[in-house]
C-alpha cells in the first residue's frame, strides 16, 4: 500500500512535467488547450487519490525521504491542482479570444501552454519536497517559469512589469537562499553533513537542539526572501505590476496559488525557528509584516484605476491577514490562517476569471470604462459582485469564517492590534464596493462587446467558498486540525 501511494506522489509531479513537454511539442494546434485541461485534470485526480491515502493513513515519506506529504501540504497540493484545472478551463476560451484580437501569436501560445504546466510542476515540487534547499530551487523555478508569461503581450508596460518581477523576486529570493545556508549551518552540527541535514522531517525532529542565535538570523533572511514572494509590504512593489500586466489566467494562478506557496515555505521555516528559539520573535516579525501589508494594501486599493491592479492589492491584503494569523499562532489563529489560504485562493481566482471576461468585453482594464455588467452578461456581473462579497468577508462565505476566527484570536491574544485589523478590513470593504458597484450596475455602454463566458470555473469556485462558509466538510476539519498540531 505504501508503495502504491509513493508512486502516486511521483505521478502527481510527473503529470504536469510530461504535460509541459507534450504541450511544447504540440504547439499551437487546435487541441492544445484541451490537452492543457486534460493534463491539469489528471494532476487533480492524482492529487485527490493521494489526499485520500493521506487522510486514511496519515503522513508519509516517499522517494527515499526526498518527498513527503502531511496534512499541511496535501491540502495545498489539492488546491493547487484544482485551481490549475479550472484556470486551464477558463484559459481555453479566453486565450482563444486574445489570439483573435491579435494580442498573442502562434509561438507565444506554444510557450504559454508549456510554461503553464511547468509552473504547476514547480509549485507542486515546492509543496511536496522534503528538502528545504530543493524548496528554494522550486520556488525560483516557479518565478522563472512565469516571468516571460507576465511579458507575454510584449507591450512596454508588460515588459517593465516582468523585468521588475524578475529582478525584485530574484534579489528577494536570493536572501532566502542565504537563510537556507545558515539553516544548513545550524543543522549540520546536529544532523551531520549531507542531504539528510536539509530534510524538513529531520529538521523538525531536532529543531529543539538547533542553535537559536543562528536560526533567528536565518529567519530574518528567510522572512525577507520568501516575504518578497508572498508580496508583503514593503517588499510588494513588483506584485501589482506583475499580476496586472500578464494574461488574466496567469494573474489568477499568481494571485491564487503562488502567493500561497511562498507563504507555505515561510511557515515551514517559522516552525523550525520557533522550535529552536522558544520565543515568539519569528511570530512577532510575521505579525508586523502582516499588519503593515493589510493597512498599506487597504489604502492603496482606494486609489486604483486598473481593475486587475486593484485586485492585486486585495491579494496583498489577504496574504497580510494570513501572515499575521500565522504569526499570532495558537490553534484558532492557525486554523483561521489555513482556512483563509484556501478560501482566498478560490475566491480570488474566481474574481480574476470574471475580471478577465469583463475586460475582454470592454477591451480595457480601466474601471472607468467598464460598465453595465449585470445587463451585458449576468454571469460576469453577478460573478464579480458575489466574488467581491466573498472576498471582503461577508457572511455566509468562507472568508467570513476565517476572518472571524482570526479576529477572535487577535482579540484574545493581542487585543491592542484589533482596531488596526478592523480598520484595514473596513477600508477594503468600502473601497471594493465603491469601485465594483458602478461597474456592474447601469446600462450597457456602446463599446461593450458580448463574450462567451466560461461558466463552470466561476460557479464552481464561488459554490465551494459558499459551502465551506456554511458547512465545513469533516475531512477538511480533520486536515486543518492535524495541520494546526503540526505547526504548533
Amino acid at each position, binding site marked *: 500500500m505504501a508503495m502504491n501511494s509513493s508512486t502516486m506522489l511521483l505521478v502527481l509531479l510527473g503529470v504536469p512535467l510530461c504535460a509541459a513537454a507534450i504541450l511544447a511539442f504540440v504547439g499551437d494546434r487546435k487541441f492544445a488547450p484541451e490537452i492543457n485541461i486534460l493534463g491539469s485534470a489528471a494532476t487533480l485526480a492524482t492529487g485527490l487519490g493521494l489526499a485520500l491515502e493521506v487522510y486514511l493513513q496519515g503522513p508519509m515519506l516517499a522517494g527515499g525521504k526526498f518527498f513527503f506529504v502531511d496534512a499541511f501540504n496535501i491540502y495545498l497540493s489539492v488546491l493547487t491542482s484544482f485551481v490549475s484545472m479550472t484556470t486551464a478551463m477558463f484559459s481555453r476560451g479566453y486565450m482563444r479570444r486574445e489570439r483573435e484580437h491579435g494580442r498573442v501569436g502562434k509561438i507565444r501560445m506554444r510557450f504559454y501552454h508549456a510554461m503553464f504546466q511547468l509552473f504547476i510542476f514547480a509549485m507542486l515540487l515546492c509543496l511536496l519536497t522534503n528538502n528545504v534547499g530543493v524548496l528554494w530551487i522550486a520556488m525560483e523555478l516557479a518565478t522563472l517559469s512565469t516571468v516571460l508569461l507576465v*511579458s507575454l503581450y510584449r507591450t512596454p508596460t508588460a515588459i517593465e512589469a516582468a523585468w521588475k518581477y524578475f*529582478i525584485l523576486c530574484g534579489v528577494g529570493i536570493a536572501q532566502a*537562499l542565504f537563510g537556507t545556508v*545558515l539553516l*544548513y*549551518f545550524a543543522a549540520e552540527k546536529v544532523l551531520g553533513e549531507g542531504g539528510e541535514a536539509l530534510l524538513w522531517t529531520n529538521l523538525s525532529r531536532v529543531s529543539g537542539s538547533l542553535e537559536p542565535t543562528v536560526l533567528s538570523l536565518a529567519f530574518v533572511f528567510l522572512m525577507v526572501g520568501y516575504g518578497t514572494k508572498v508580496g508583503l509590504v514593503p517588499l510588494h512593489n513588483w506584485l501589482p*505590476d506583475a499580476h496586472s500586466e500578464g494574461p488574466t489566467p496567469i494573474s489568477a494562478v499568481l494571485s491564487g496559488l503562488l502567493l500561497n506557496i511562498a507563504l507555505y515555505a515561510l511557515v515551514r521555516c517559522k516552525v523550525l525557528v520557533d522550535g529552536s528559539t522558544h520565543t515568539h520573535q519569528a511570530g512577532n516579525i510575521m505579525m508586523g509584516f502582516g499588519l503593515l501589508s493589510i493597512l498599506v494594501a487597504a489604502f492603496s486599493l482606494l486609489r486604483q484605476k486598473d481593475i486587475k491592479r486593484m485586485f492585486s492589492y486585495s491579494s496583498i491584503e489577504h496574504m497580510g491577514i494570513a501572515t499575521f494569523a500565522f504569526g499570532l499562532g495558537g490553534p484558532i489563529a492557525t486554523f483561521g490562517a489555513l482556512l483563509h489560504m484556501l478560501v482566498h485562493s478560490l475566491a480570488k481566482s474566481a474574481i480574476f476569471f470574471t475580471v478577465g471576461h469583463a475586460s475582454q468585453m470592454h477591451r480595457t482594464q480601466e474601471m472607468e470604462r467598464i460598465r453595465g455588467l449585470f445587463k451585458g452578461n449576468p454571469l460576469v456581473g453577478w460573478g464579480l459582485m458575489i466574488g467581491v462579497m466573498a472576498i471582503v468577508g461577508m457572511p455566509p462565505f468562507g472568508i467570513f469564517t476565517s476572518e472571524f476566527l482570526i479576529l477572535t484570536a487577535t482579540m484574545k491574544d493581542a487585543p491592542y492590534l484589533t482596531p488596526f485589523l478592523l480598520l484595514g478590513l473596513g477600508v477594503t470593504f468600502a473601497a471594493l464596493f465603491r469601485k465594483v458597484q458602478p461597474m456592474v450596475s447601469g446600462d450597457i455602454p456602446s463599446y461593450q462587446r458580448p463574450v462567451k463566458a466560461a461558466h463552470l470555473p466561476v460557479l464552481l469556485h464561488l459554490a465551494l467558498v459558499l459551502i465551506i462558509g456554511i458547512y465545513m466538510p469533516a475531512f477538511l476539519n480533520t486536515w486543518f486540525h492535524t495541520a494546526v498540531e503540526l505547526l504548533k
Partner: protein
Amino acid sequence: MNLHIAAQINSFLAALVLLTAFGMLVQKRVYGLIHLFAWQGFFLSLNTAIVGFVADRHHLYISSVLTLSLKVFLLPYILHVLIHRLKIRKEVETIVNIPTTMMIGIALVIFSYHLTAPVRELSNLVTRSTIAVALATVMLGLLMMITRKHAVTQIIGFLALENGLFFAATSATYGMPLVVELGVALDVLIAAFIFGIFFFHINRTFDSLDVEQMARLKEGD
C-alpha cells in the same frame, strides 16, 4: 597542506573576491565589468577547489568545476555575445557618485562582519573567517543593482550577488549538499536564458537598455 596555510590562502582569495566586488561597483565600462565578474568567478572556483582539497570534501570539486564553466566561461561569453549583438554603448553611468557608493560599500562590509559574528564564533571550519566577506559580496551585489540603472549592469549585479551566496555556502558549511548546488546552478542557467531574451525585448521596445526609461507603471493618482 598545513591548515594554517590553507586558512591564509582562503582569506587571501576572499579578499580578492571582495576586491572584485568593489571593482564592479565603480567600473563604468560594460566589458570591464564582465571581466571583473569572470575574475570573481575564477577566485571563487579556485577557493572552492582548495577548500575541497583541505577539508577532503570531494563534492566541492564538482561545485568548483561547475562555477568555473558557468561563471567564468559560459555567462561572460553569453553577456559578450548579447552586448555585441545589441550594439550597446561602452559606457554606463552610475547614479550615486563613486565616493559615496564606496563609503556605503565599506559600511556594508562592516555591517556584514557584525551580522555574522555569531556564526563565526560557532564555526570551527578552516573557512570561518570568510563568512562575513561572503555576506558582504551579497550586499555589494545588491548595492550595485540599486545604484545602476542599466539592464546589463543590473544582471551582473544579480550574478555577483549569486556568487556571494555560493561563497557563503562554501565558507559556512563546506558547500550545500550536491543536489542543492546543482539545482541552484540550473536555476542560474535558466535565468541567464531569460535575461538574454529580456535584453532583446527591452531593447526593441524601449530602444535602449536603460532601465530608467521603464517608468510607466506608477501608482495611479
